[in-house]
């Protein structure tokens, strides 16, 4: 039994309307594949090269309309699904995660949480290398590093549109009354965009790195949201994607919060 066989069964039995998985793409890459008919399931692959966070599709209107779907889920995808549940964007009964080798059915939030407890989260080597470099820099050098990187941004929004947690139908970037952030991709427009996005993902980023992976000009933009997520973790002791019942750290008051101003 593998993911193909599993998908075939699920589609044939009508358990799900579609399987969102991966197929072989250009130059050895893996890319998302939407399988809606059992006979197309043999396109699917599920291996180490499958990197993208497919949870991003779960909040699209086209996918919502389908009903229950199965998702080939790497640990990051599972975390994103839990976080989407916590934010009431995805209903438990509408997704079936296919984890492990693609045959492990995780149909409930609880099952996903239990499965995740067995997966270690590791930072990719390239990220570690950049973070090491950044940690050796002083504030001015870090500022220069990010300025140089952000000057490359063309505001294509591939980062936002690939992010499973950037699901807002009317993103701040698309608002023009008021125009919170300049549309143009100049120094200020780029900086404000990425600051706002990082702030909006603090306590919500599941650290999948997909935004950085999506960036056509190679900006390690995910490290900004990682950083915000990390600081929420340090201050509030919780991580996005850990549970389907997570309260949003930045808008939840608890009597034991260390800030006293609100009491």
């Amino acid at each position, binding site marked *: 039994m593998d993911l193909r066989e599993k998908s075939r069964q699920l589609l044939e039995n009508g358990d799900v309307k579609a399987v969102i998985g991966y197929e072989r*793409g*250009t*130059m050895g*890459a893996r*890319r*998302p*594949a*939407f399988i809606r008919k059992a006979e197309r399931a043999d396109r699917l692959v599920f291996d180490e090269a499958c990197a*993208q966070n497919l949870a*991003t*599709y779960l909040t699209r209107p*086209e996918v919502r309309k389908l009903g229950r779907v199965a998702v080939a889920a790497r640990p990051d995808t599972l975390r994103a699904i839990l976080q989407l549940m916590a934010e009431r964007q995805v209903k438990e009964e509408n997704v079936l995660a296919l984890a492990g080798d693609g045959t492990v059915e995780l149909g409930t939030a609880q099952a996903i949480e239990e499965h995740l407890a067995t997966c270690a989260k590791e930072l990719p080597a390239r990220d570690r290398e950049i973070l090491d470099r950044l940690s050796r820099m002083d504030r001015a050098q870090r500022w220069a590093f990010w300025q*140089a990187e952000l000057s*490359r941004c*063309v*505001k*294509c*929004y*591939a980062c*936002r*549109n*690939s992010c499973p947690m950037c699901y807002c139908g009317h993103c701040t970037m*698309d608002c023009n009354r008021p125009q919170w952030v*300049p*549309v*143009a*991709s*100049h120094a200020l*427009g780029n900086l404000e965009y990425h600051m706002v996005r990082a702030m909006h993902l603090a306590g919500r980023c599941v650290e999948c790195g*997909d935004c950085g*992976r*999506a960036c*056509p*000009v*190679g900006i390690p933009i995910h490290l900004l949201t990682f950083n915000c997520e990390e600081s929420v973790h340090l201050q509030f002791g919780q991580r996005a994607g850990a549970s389907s019942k997570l309260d949003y750290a930045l808008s939840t008051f608890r009597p034991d919060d260390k800030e006293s101003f609100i009491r």
Partner: protein
Amino acid sequence: MADNFFLPQASLDTLFAALTGDGRRILAPTDRDGRTELNPVTSPGDVAKDYLQTILSAKEAAFPKVERLMSFSTGAGSVDLKDAEPSAVPTVLFGIRPCEASGFKALDAVFNWDTRDRFFNARMEALAVIGIGCTRKDDACFCTSVGGGPGSTSGSDILLTPVEGGFLAEVLTEKGKAMAALAPEAFKADPGLEKKVVEVPVAFDQPGLTKRLKDRFEDGIWVEQSLRCVGCGACAFVCPTCVCFDIVEEADAKGGHRLRTWDSCGGHMFTLHASGHNPRETQAQRWRQRVYHKFSYYPERYDMLGCVGCGKCTRACPVDMNLQEHLAEAAQA
């Protein structure tokens, strides 16, 4: 007819020095921070060594991602307009590929088909292209399917093709001659060099595709193909021929600027009305627009294609929307 020369590798120094001495900026592919990008360079040593293409296209040399169209100052009951002068620095684009060099024609078609766009034209006038033919390709390339080729001279003022010890230099235009004349000693007599470029197989029947699109508008193929598309602007922004733009305003109480920025037909805001009505509501409609614009509307309106087959969109797409593959599928019966 082109004038052919031998340009020894070592003579590039002379050529670069002559071009910069003439007050020209040289933009060439560089390999900084592990990325192949166009940057100003002064010596051939700065140019990337073993590159296929830059990530972004050369279009920014004539159509930058942001430019000012005008400025204004506002006072009580009055407005002063200030026309914007295009900043057209004399520039030589060195080392871009033949596909991208020919991309300027598709931009020109839109910018000048009816009224003339001063900003684009001023930069084009100040621009000269020294292309380099391709000895390497990847799976995203399909120039030969859209009327181009790895040795195509279209769009270049001088086309260099790598040969033993240097380049075969085809001096193609008046602008090319003017550049060659700045460094006559760099251009040696052509000993009868063979122009050898990589072979790029034809992937699909383009005239057939264009014809097929005529009655494929309502086909389910666009929904199927676009399911994974996330509707970003990556494909359009890296594309040497994508010309769609937005006009935005930036101002404070005293005045401001009107700017032109790149835009993408793939984004959901592109055609959205203030009322919420959207003529291209779904990603499938927007993906179809991309394909039709380049392969149906362009041929119909400008008698050329809106795609040069460079493959940048395929390489840039976060979800690997392989254009060549999708076109081949659409070309089929």
